[in-house]
């Protein structure tokens, strides 16, 4: 148990890995969402932001690899713990009535799988440009890529659905983070849920604003 490997094998240790990688990803999505909102300031603003992020290949790839490793560890912990949890009750009840668990908590796994599918789609869509329904992808014209693709209703809707999944995932995840890290205290406990809900709403609504605005014809 005193080895890093032993820690990562324990149920508590894997949850800590999930919490820390989750925290990193929450930090990322907050920054990503704020940057994205620059589309509302016009093509120069968002294209300039995109160019700035790609100015140093070293920084870009350090961030990309860190995020990929974080997502990988997060999913590894989620997957192995989920399998353990399911195996821990081989014979189920004829009847079990949930008393306390929230919808967000119960949808963590299925929402996580949806987020994974979204992450893959999103990278193929707006990072590599492999998926470009009905328009030409440009590596420098971020504004053009975003506006043209969200004019395709199913693309915009898929993004909106995925961000609703993120809303649920973060509502439980951020609250759960405090619990996993052992930060529980009567004074903190009254605001943990609020912190989680506010961040989750901010992030998801910030992201949703863009496809919604383009679909509604506000941005063109």
């Amino acid at each position, binding site marked *: 148990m005193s080895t890093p490997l032993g820690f990562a*094998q324990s149920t*508590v240790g894997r949850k800590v890995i999930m919490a820390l990688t989750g925290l990193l990803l929450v930090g990322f999505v907050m920054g990503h969402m704020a940057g994205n909102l620059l589309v509302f300031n016009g093509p120069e603003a968002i294209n300039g932001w995109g160019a700035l992020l790609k100015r140093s290949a070293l920084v870009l790839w350090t961030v990309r690899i860190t995020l990929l490793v974080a997502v990988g560890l997060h999913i590894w912990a989620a997957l192995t713990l989920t399998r353990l949890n399911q*195996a821990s009750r081989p014979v*189920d009840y004829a*009847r079990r009535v949930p008393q306390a668990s929230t919808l967000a*908590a119960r949808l*963590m796994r299925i929402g996580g799988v949806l987020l994974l599918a979204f992450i893959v789609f999103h990278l193929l869509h707006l990072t590599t440009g492999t998926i470009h329904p009905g328009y030409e992808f440009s590596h420098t014209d971020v504004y053009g890529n975003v506006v043209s693709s969200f004019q395709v209703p199913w693309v915009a809707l898929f993004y909106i659905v995925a961000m609703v999944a993120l809303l649920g995932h973060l509502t439980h995840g951020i609250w759960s983070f405090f*619990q996993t890290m052992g930060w529980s205290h009567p004074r903190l*406990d009254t605001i943990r849920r609020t912190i989680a809900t506010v961040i989750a709403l901010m992030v998801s609504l910030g992201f949703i604003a863009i496809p919604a605005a383009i679909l509604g014809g506000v941005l063109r």
Partner: protein
Amino acid sequence: MNLTLKVWRQPSGEARGRLVSYAAQGISADMSFLEMLDVVNEGLIEKGEEPIAFDHDCREGICGSCGVMINGMAHGPMAGTATCQLHMRSFQDGDTIVVEPWRARAFPVLRDLVVDRSPLDRIMQAGGFVSIATGNAPDAHAILVPKEAAELAMDAAQCIGCGACVAACPNASAMLFTAAKVSHLGLLPQGQPERDRRALGMVTQMDLEGFGGCTNYGECTTACPKGISLENIARMNRDFRTAALRARPESAGAGGAP
């Protein structure tokens, strides 16, 4: 009251089990759930059938022996009570009540509603104690205990080890039980010397027994007849994490020379 029971019957651990329907007639609303089962069992014995096996002892909510899943809820619909403290007035005349044993890989069914909860005992043996020096008893006031620590420790010590937390948890996790026991001693000055070893040992044993992990659903604390709080799980997570980081490898113990 007249009720229909659907009770899990399983002659032994190896045998296949199934839900069997029984009519429970002439039940008084003032009976406890276990007394109602006693009445049904008397009827079964008169008919020459095997009575329903269930665990019980004190019948006043302090020993932790009793506990069954009642209509999908551990210890039934009343908050803060064990099965033995549940009264039949919690039900309506004509109700159908489904009665099942605790379900967990770590709690194999022994017979009908009786499961083997010895994994909880082994978790205790892995660190749920304070080692004491022999000799004369120290003065009771020799060690100062902060009032808040004493109260939180007493809250955690209320756990009667019934296993309802495991039964109610969708992951069959024993975190609330283990956390209560880790906290109970970990909060007190007497528990400090073994605090790291206790958290590491008990969590490791909990994992070895084949319980699931915590996903913070909160079902355990709602089902708990003693209302053990989730704050204990947070404390155990913290104790385990710091202990795992601080622990020295076996070969590099504190003794200096190998």
